[in-house]
């Protein structure tokens, strides 16, 4: 209502003007009728009426909204005031932009990772099926588990299995085979995730059964790139691993999966299988209205049934099944680190606020006379506060807008050079997008900070002692007691917060250096790895795989510059398989197996290629093939853990007892012990590990392996191996009858990826710490230069009375350093308490690391000293005559 009045007042004013004209005309007529000349009648009419413009203005004013007018006036006034002091304005805006920018940056990652819901329909009812046990809960399933979960129709609407691309598939039939990411899924997969179909259909349950034939569903990307998005491609075939696959449908690009898929093929599980191998993931959709306690109760029954069918060794009594929200499962352990980072940027923002409040206080005290004059002219206290708040909000909103740009561009840049191993952020952080959440967040903290840093100075400035201020000579009067105290307190606060930040950064830097210093146990320099997908009917038995390995090794070794070539079923540091084992002849006690260890199947040159040292016994040779006696090599960690006194080389072990028919094999003689590798990353102790020759794998295990994982070629060269990669891939293609390789990465890159999270955290906290340090330096500099400027007279008198320049300088330094010292003490206390939240980030460094807690305060003191030095120097240059004459 009142807004309408406000917005249409221009047209109303036109009406009024016309009405007044009409009135004047009538009045003129009346005067003329009394016999006046038309000129005189007109004059009289105007005299009677008065000034029409002032009438219109009168009406205009009460058609307006007072608060809007006031706001507009305050805003114009603020802009005018700020533009008069460009130096102050620019520094304040930059400080706010940094403070808000880092918050926007961290929040936009939190938004993408924690807050945004999964893009599937009704994501809250999606759960991931988990195995629970004393060590916590983890995903992963075998066919018997999938089968039993699938039957729990009282709580689940749909249950679907899928893998993450595993071995990869080769599109054949063209000039060059192409390796693509083919995700195996069960028939319900697409309906579970509500995948939108652009052409054709998804798999039928008949197609997902053991003799369902070769069918595939294409992704939008592959459909576009290979078929030009032609809908007629549905019903035709695509050659995968030399076999024709019927294309039954295409999925829309809106469907986003964790591992991007090029195409999907059905698992075609035999639901009667007793295969105990875990090689896929299962998710489910809860029935509407089903609660988590109901699901868990139902899954307890399912676990009992599982034990009854497959034997009590198949699932230990203290283990069972459970569910986790799919969103939570995807986020994983990222939540806590991100919240700690949010806490850290909160500190940066507080420092920025303290800094700007400080600048505003200084500004306000030099404007004391201005405020006193206004108060004397009748401005109320609330009007002065409002005026000052408008100023600080203008600063914070401009700074916030700049911070939004800075923070968003900054985080995208940071993620593109170091994705930090964070889930859900997309390729190089592409899923971190600007949305309404981020805009609202930035607007919100901009307003809050504007009020926060503006209110203190505004309140203190609006309590002028009128008479005292107006009677003071000039603006150079001493700083008010209150404002001086306040500013010192702000500087102390800045120092303390900065110290906490920098100690945090120091701990993370030390962690990162420690991680870098860890010997991973294998060579990474000049080593490259590439994946070859052994999918298809050719590689269902061990012998043909071993043949490709032998030929490929020979041909790759012939490439000039190549020093060594190894092959394995998984890469160090890139995740691998685990197997249980028994020591032949050793009593097992209560547990079903003697132990568990990481499991590699490798070629005979693997240890040479990665320079993993042989500590005892012998290494594998080319003769350790299917015809030779079964052998195994273990690492030192396994020897130490399972043969604390005995000699492993005298023992034989049985790998994978009771793991199902795929793993059935005879016992293996331990023939050697090799050095440990840090497979779980440099921050984890080496796992026990066993290695068997690739050529000695049971056929069924090779077939399974070919499905779930590619074969990794590991090549060490004299020169940068990337320069050789095209000749190596050509050699391997020749040796394998045309198989392509993919995922070509140096081991240095893989190692860097392993510490990416730590590097990301370290980088961020270092940036925050540095920003804090810079602002604290500006803060203490500002306070001290202001105090020197205010005390020019006092310094002049002291000098005139014979004080030494050096003693004046020291006096200023003492004052500044006193503030610093208090800040450092408070900050150290704070850090003592706060660094415990960093414990899970640290490696090789204690939360109360003496180096961080000694070096950081010294660094802060040094920075403070150097920023106090300039005003201190200035104090010695005060000319007593000038200073006194100013009086």
């Amino acid at each position, binding site marked *: 209502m009142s807004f309408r009045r406000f917005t249409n007042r221009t047209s109303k004013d036109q009406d*009024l003007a*016309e*009405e007044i004209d*009409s*009135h004047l005309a009538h*009045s003129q007529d009346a005067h003329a009728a009394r016999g006046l000349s038309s000129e005189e009648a007109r004059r009289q009419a105007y005299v009677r009426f008065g000034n029409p413009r002032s009438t219109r203005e009168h*009406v205009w004013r009460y058609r307006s909204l007072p608060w809007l007018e006031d706001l507009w006036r305050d805003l114009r006034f603020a802009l005018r005031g700020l533009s008069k002091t460009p130096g102050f304005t620019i520094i304040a805006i930059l400080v706010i932009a940094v403070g808000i920018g880092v918050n926007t940056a961290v929040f936009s990652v939190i938004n993408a990772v924690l807050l945004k819901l999964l893009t599937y329909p009704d994501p809250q009812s999606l759960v991931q099926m988990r195995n629970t046990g004393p060590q916590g809960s983890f995903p992963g399933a075998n066919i018997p588990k999938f089968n039993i979960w699938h039957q729990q129709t009282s709580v689940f609407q749909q249950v679907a299995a899928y893998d993450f691309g595993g071995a990869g598939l080769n599109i054949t039939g063209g000039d060059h085979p192409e390796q693509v990411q083919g995700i195996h899924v069960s028939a319900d997969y697409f309906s579970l995730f509500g995948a939108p179909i652009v052409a054709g259909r998804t798999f039928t349950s008949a197609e997902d059964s053991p003799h369902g034939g070769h069918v595939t569903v294409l992704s939008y990307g592959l459909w576009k790139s290979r078929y030009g998005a032609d809908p007629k491609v549905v019903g035709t075939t695509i050659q995968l691993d030399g076999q024709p696959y019927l294309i039954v449908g295409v999925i829309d690009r809106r469907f986003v999966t964790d591992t991007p898929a090029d195409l999907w093929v059905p698992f075609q599980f035999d639901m009667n299988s007793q295969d105990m191998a875990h090689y896929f993931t299962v998710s489910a959709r809860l029935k509407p209205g089903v609660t988590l306690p109901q699901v868990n109760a139902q899954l307890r029954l399912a676990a009992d049934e599982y034990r009854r069918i497959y034997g009590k060794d198949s699932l230990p009594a203290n283990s069972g099944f459970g569910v986790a929200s799919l969103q939570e499962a995807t986020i994983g352990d990222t939540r806590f680190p991100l919240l700690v980072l949010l806490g850290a940027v909160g500190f940066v923002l507080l420092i920025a606020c303290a800094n700007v409040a400080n600048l505003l206080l200084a500004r306000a005290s030099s404007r004391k006379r201005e405020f006193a004059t206004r108060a004397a002219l009748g401005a109320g206290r609330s009007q002065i506060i409002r005026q000052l708040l408008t100023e600080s909000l203008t600063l914070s909103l401009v700074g916030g807008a700049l911070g939004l740009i800075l923070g968003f561009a900054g985080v995208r840049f940071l993620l593109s050079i170091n994705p930090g191993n964070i889930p859900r952020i997309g390729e190089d952080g592409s899923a971190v997008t600007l949305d309404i959440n981020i805009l609202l967040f930035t607007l919100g903290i901009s307003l809050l900070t504007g009020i926060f840093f503006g209110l203190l100075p505004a309140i203190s400035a609006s309590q002028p002692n009128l008479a005292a201020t107006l009677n003071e000579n000039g603006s150079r009067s001493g700083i008010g007691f209150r404002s001086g105290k306040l500013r010192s307190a702000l500087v102390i606060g800045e120092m303390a917060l900065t110290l906490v930040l920098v100690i945090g950064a120091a701990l993370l830097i030390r962690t990162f250096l420690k991680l870098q210093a860890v010997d991973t146990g294998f060579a990474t320099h000049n080593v490259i790895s590439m994946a070859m997908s052994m999918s298809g009917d050719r590689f269902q038995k061990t012998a043909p795989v071993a043949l490709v390995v032998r030929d490929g090794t020979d041909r790759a070794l012939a490439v000039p510059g190549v020093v060594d070539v190894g092959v394995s079923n998984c890469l160090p540091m890139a995740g691998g398989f685990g197997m249980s084992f028994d020591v032949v002849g050793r009593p097992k006690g209560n547990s079903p197996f003697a132990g568990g260890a990481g499991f590699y199947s490798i070629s005979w040159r693997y240890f040479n290629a990665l320079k993993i040292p042989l500590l005892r016994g012998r290494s594998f040779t080319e003769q350790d093939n299917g015809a030779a006696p079964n052998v195994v090599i273990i690492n030192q960690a396994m020897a130490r853990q399972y043969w604390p006194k005995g000699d492993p080389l005298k023992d034989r072990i049985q790998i994978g007892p009771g793991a199902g028919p795929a793993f059935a094999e005879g016992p293996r003689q331990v023939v050697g012990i090799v050095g440990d590798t840090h497979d779980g990353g440099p921050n984890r102790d080496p796992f026990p590990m066993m290695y068997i020759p690739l050529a000695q794998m049971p056929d069924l295990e090779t077939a399974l392996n070919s499905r779930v994982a590619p074969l990794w070629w590991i090549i060490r060269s004299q020169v940068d191996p990337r320069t050789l990669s095209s000749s190596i891939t050509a050699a391997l293609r020749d040796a394998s009858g045309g198989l392509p390789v993919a995922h070509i990465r140096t081991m240095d890159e893989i190692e860097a990826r392993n510490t990416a999270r730590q590097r990301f955290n370290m980088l961020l906290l270092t940036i925050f710490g540095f920003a804090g340090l810079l602002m604290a330096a500006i803060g203490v500099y500002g306070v001290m230069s202001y105090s020197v400027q205010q005390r020019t007279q006092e310094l002049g008198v002291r000098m005139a009375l014979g004080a030494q320049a050096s003693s004046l300088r020291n006096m200023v330094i003492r004052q500044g350093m006193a503030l610093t010292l208090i800040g450092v003490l408070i900050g150290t206390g704070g850090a003592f308490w706060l660094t415990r939240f960093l414990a899970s980030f640290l490696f090789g460094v204690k939360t109360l690391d003496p180096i961080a807690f000694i070096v950081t305060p010294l660094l802060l003191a040094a920075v403070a000293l150097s920023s106090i030095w300039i005003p201190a120097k200035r104090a010695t240059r005060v000319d007593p005559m000038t200073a006194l004459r100013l009086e």
Partner: protein
Amino acid sequence: MSRDEIPPGTLYLLILKTLAVRKKLHGYEIAEFIEQQSEDVLQVEEGSLYPALQRMLMKGWVVAEWGVTAGNRRARYYTLTADGKKQLALELSKFQRIMGAVTKVVQPA
């Protein structure tokens, strides 16, 4: 002949009453009517007549529409609304109360 200013606060009452009697008038006619009825004692200050009319429009006591006068001029005619009539009763009783009170004070005892 001296003319007196309208006592503050009574302009609304005068306008409302005028419109109640004459139903539909434009601004000049309102001013004229008040002056004639008061036998030229009350002088409507024309500069404040229009702001008052604007306020009354906003409060919904009167409505206005453009029309043509007998002399073939455009003019804006005001009429009373139901709210305006209520307001007139209110203003009238207020005025009488005050007048009564003032009279009691100034009357010789």
